[in-house]
């Protein structure tokens, strides 16, 4: 399997926009076992996962899978359908997508844990209506060379030909990504006093 790796630039800091070509994966309820089969979870780092993304689906299609198609190498946007990323909580799934090169996902809906895992990596997940996603997928399949610009501020997608799609993104994640505050650790460490108070107030922490 070959994949154009763009591991040199993982998301960092404020994210204003994601630019690039798009890969389309068609189908509802695509689970995280499909995105990264469990045998590839036998690792203590995420480093090699980019090559293994959708491994079984790619093997089945012997080179014809979107993630293997030459014209889609280097793409940075993934366009999917409903309930993408359901099943296992494995962060290995968005890690694998990110390490292949994906920096934003557009879909009709996402499974919650997957959505949160993407946010923790600085990968925005945008939603759009069933009809919008279908028309977007259709156009991208017809012309995979289109360069897209996804704007965080306006939640919009503009194709190089000028066509514009209005998307949606939850206000919280939008603000976190745009401001660069999508990595929660430092925020969580900022409330030491309140954390100690909360712990103190819980009967089970203090032997009832």
């Amino acid at each position: 399997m070959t994949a154009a790796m763009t591991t040199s630039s993982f998301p960092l800091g404020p994210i204003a926009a994601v630019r690039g070509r798009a890969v389309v994966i068609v189908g509802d309820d695509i689970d995280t076992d499909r995105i990264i089969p469990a045998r590839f979870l036998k690792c203590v780092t995420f480093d090699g996962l980019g090559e293994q993304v959708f491994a079984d689906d790619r093997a089945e299609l012997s080179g014809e899978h979107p993630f293997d198609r030459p014209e889609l190498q280097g793409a940075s946007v993934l366009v999917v359908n409903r309930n993408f990323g359901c099943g296992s909580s494995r962060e290995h799934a968005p890690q694998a997508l990110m390490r292949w090169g994906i920096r934003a996902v557009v879909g009709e809906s996402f499974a919650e844990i997957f959505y949160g895992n993407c946010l923790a990596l600085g990968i925005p997940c945008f939603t759009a209506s069933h009809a919008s996603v279908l028309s977007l997928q259709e156009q991208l399949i017809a012309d995979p060379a289109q360069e897209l610009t996804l704007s965080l501020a306006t939640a919009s997608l503009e194709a190089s030909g000028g066509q514009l799609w209005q998307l949606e993104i939850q206000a919280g994640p939008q603000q976190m990504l745009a401001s660069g505050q999508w990595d929660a650790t430092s925020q969580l460490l900022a409330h030491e006093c309140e954390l100690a108070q909360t712990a103190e107030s819980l009967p089970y922490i203090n032997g009832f």
Partner: protein
Amino acid sequence: MSAGTLYDKVWDLHRVAQLPGGSTQLFIGLHLIHEVTSPQAFAALKDLGLPVRLPERTVATVDHIVPTTSQARPFADPLAEEMLATLERNCSDYGIPLHGLGSGRQGIVHVIAPELGLTQPGMTVACGDSHTSTHGAFGAIAFGIGTSQVRDVLASQSLSMGKLKVRRIWVEGQLQPGVYAKDLVLHIIRVLGVKGGVGYAYEFAGPAIDALAMEERMTLCNMAIEGGARCGYVNPDAVTFAYLQGRPYAPKAEAWERAVAWWRGLASGADAVFDDEVRFDAAAIAPTVTWGITPGQGIGVDETVPTLEQTEPDERPLAQEAYRYMDLQPGTPIAGTAVDVCFIGSCTNGRLSDLQAAAAVAKGRHVAPGIKAFVVPGSEQVAAAAVAEGLDRVFREAGFEWREPGCSMCLAMNPDRLEGRQISASSSNRNFKGRQGSATGRTLLMSPAMVAAAAIAGKVCDVRQMINTTP
């Protein structure tokens, strides 16, 4: 907006602060870790130079990668050995208790935390595993998290979370003999869909839920995530307290009385407000079997694989994909489908009562020729209790293999896996494409008793016919 539910009460008790972006910082009462989703979190912690905030509130075990034949160290698989060695080193470095192999307390994380009394009502429970919803059976708010969030809990004993809506799933009546919590939850997911629960916590309530034993409640909550609900729970009651009393980490003596009083007060009140409510009749549910590639594609064992015409239009592409992958014909009965492998175990159905139900079917019968059938207890404690009542012998005499505890063929990260296009009858939780270790392997989800019946018959059959007749 929900109010006065257990979910609301536990949420409010664990709120630490409001975070930029509108999410809530939620204190985590119990953090469970295992070898697969924690190594990168510890590595990140080391990179950041951070300590573990409350090491005594994190508990570790090893489950996903352990072999179930020989557990001698080092493991034959060097990657599996490296993962366990890494967990051992991280636990040792940070002072985190590890219930390791041979400790008498090792097992699937969602089996051992309840049996040790670690999981208690009113707690927030997080673990880097989606089946953390299991712990909701105790009236805890329990949910799966990713590895970045494991890092956050290690560093801060808290998480950045958005509040869920609450849907009450009210179940009237009683389950019929031969019908189990597994059938109930597969039926609920069949009706509400695999994405029906996205954005919700599921509160399971009603006479049928009150009548469930704790281990059945765990099976039910375990699969809330398969219906899209990140957490599911049952209000704590006398059944919960009776299960907990006397367990190693349960409160003792006077603290026990105070704990029970506090736990009782957490249950959803009579005036609780839910965002949504759905009702089911337990008596109408048959043993349920999946025929497709999502846990929502289930039918009663007496039904036929749905045709396209019987399928909602927006579910038809998935149904067509499932017909092709499973090689099952729409309109044909699911009963009679030949199986190759039968797996009893997992965090869904690897507890003592699951093994008892399966053994009751296996006793005095024999696995059909050519079928590979094996039993993987959920923990060392489950294994010991099963052996003490002779269940291992019942299974062996019936032609089942009796294995060591672990996650095993639920997700096939260890040597237990399907080969090629083999089809399994499995008491686990996911029938996704490739889930059981072969990219073309096929899974039929069902209760442990139904798996035992399939092993005996060599094909899917209605366990109610076996439990009503002597072998």
